[in-house]
């Protein structure tokens, strides 16, 4: 007799499988109906091309460089947001200076940033800067909210028992920061992949997945375009899951 838990997992797996099969079937039918494989290839064509690309050095070189840029952008954004949020919370002048910039960055179309940055820094660093620009406001706003949402009751306990410095950070602030930061890093990672690849496409960055997508589009290689896109989606999903896993691990370790 399968347990209730096993039944739940099986049910969920069945539902997910059904959804995947359904949408793949819809894609296949749409592709066959439209019959324009240089723009909209079938599932089979895309799969074949994807596996063919896995055997090429261009694919892996592009993927490695894109991965490096995305992660670097993410780390810079994470560091900038984490540094600026406490500063803005602590000093009114910092808040007055930083908050509007963060809001402007959040609202500005990513393409505008790419075009401006391209002129100033050249094509290679653009995806890194764009990734950082996408992640920083997200982390900044979440951390700022986390500091604001700190437990004031426990803050008073810290005052009475003179809990300061690292201990105050570890027991009072860190739990709240992680509570807000973990979901922000998961969505930030997804956002970083999307924005960085977009920057690579527009800036035509050397050794990048974005550049390969651009070339595929230019030469009407629909299957290749789709295959590279799938590679980006998979990488984004893997890293989002990784961030989620790391977050859960930290939460468990910190008894959250």
């Amino acid at each position, binding site marked *: 007799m399968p347990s209730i838990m096993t039944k739940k997992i099986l049910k969920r797996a069945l539902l997910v499988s059904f959804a995947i099969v359904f949408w793949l079937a819809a894609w296949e039918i749409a592709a066959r109906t439209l019959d324009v494989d240089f723009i909209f290839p079938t599932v089979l064509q895309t799969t074949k091309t994807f596996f063919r690309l896995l055997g090429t050095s261009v694919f892996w070189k592009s993927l490695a460089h894109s991965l490096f840029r995305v992660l670097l952008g993410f780390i810079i954004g994470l560091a900038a947001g984490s540094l600026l949020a406490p500063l803005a919370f602590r000093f009114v002048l910092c808040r007055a200076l930083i908050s509007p910039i963060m809001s402007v960055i959040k609202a500005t179309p990513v393409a505008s940033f790419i075009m401006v940055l391209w002129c100033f820094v050249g094509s290679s660093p653009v995806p890194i800067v764009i990734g950082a620009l996408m992640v920083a406001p997200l982390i900044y706003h979440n951390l700022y909210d986390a500091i604001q949402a700190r437990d004031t*009751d426990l803050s008073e*306990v810290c005052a009475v028992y003179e809990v300061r410095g690292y201990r105050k950070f570890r027991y009072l602030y860190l739990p709240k920061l992680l509570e807000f930061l973990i979901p922000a890093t998961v969505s930030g990672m997804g956002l970083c992949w999307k924005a960085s690849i977009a920057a690579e496409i527009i800036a035509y960055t050397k050794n990048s997945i974005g550049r390969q997508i651009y070339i595929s589009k230019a030469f009407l290689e629909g299957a290749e375009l789709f295959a590279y896109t799938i590679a980006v989606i998979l990488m984004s999903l893997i890293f989002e899951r990784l961030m989620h896993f790391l977050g859960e691990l930290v939460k468990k370790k910190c008894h959250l």
Partner: protein
Amino acid sequence: MPLIIKNLKKSFGEKVIFDDFSYTFDNNGIYILVGDSGRGKTTLLRMIAGLDNDYTGEIITDQVAYVFQEYRLFPVLNAIDNIAKILWIQPTDEQIRSAASLLSTLGFSKTDMQLYPNALSGGMKQRVSLCRALLADKKILLLDEPFKELDSTLREQLRTILAEEAKKRLILLSAHSLDALGDLDRTVIEIK
């Protein structure tokens, strides 16, 4: 004299809580603040602890330890660490043993000491909070409704501990009524 209150005035909006209230706590011992809800017992404790500075008048005080009404334990620390890691930067074995010994006196098993606040009952949380205050070794001990969640056995234990502690420090506690205090030697301060 560890605690002097001079001409204290405190109000919340239009509502006056203290109007020129003065009191000198001459000696160590147990002092009980008695009064109806909303009369300012907790407010007075908070002002003495330096957590509420929005008043006129003067409070001359020494270092305090405070048992809050809502226990206020850190959710990321287990029972024993809520004492040891909060009171001491790097707790020594002896300090940890003293915390464990006091918790044990108050009915905690070794397993209970490892429990996190979300697994502790209200009474257990209160006892952890009380141990933390007692071991803080301050000259003034403030307790906000300390008998609230305790059964009769634990109340008796607390009375014994307070009687012993009152020999070496000033204990100021708030209570709705004097019933829970039994025959504790105390000075009653009525807040009207």
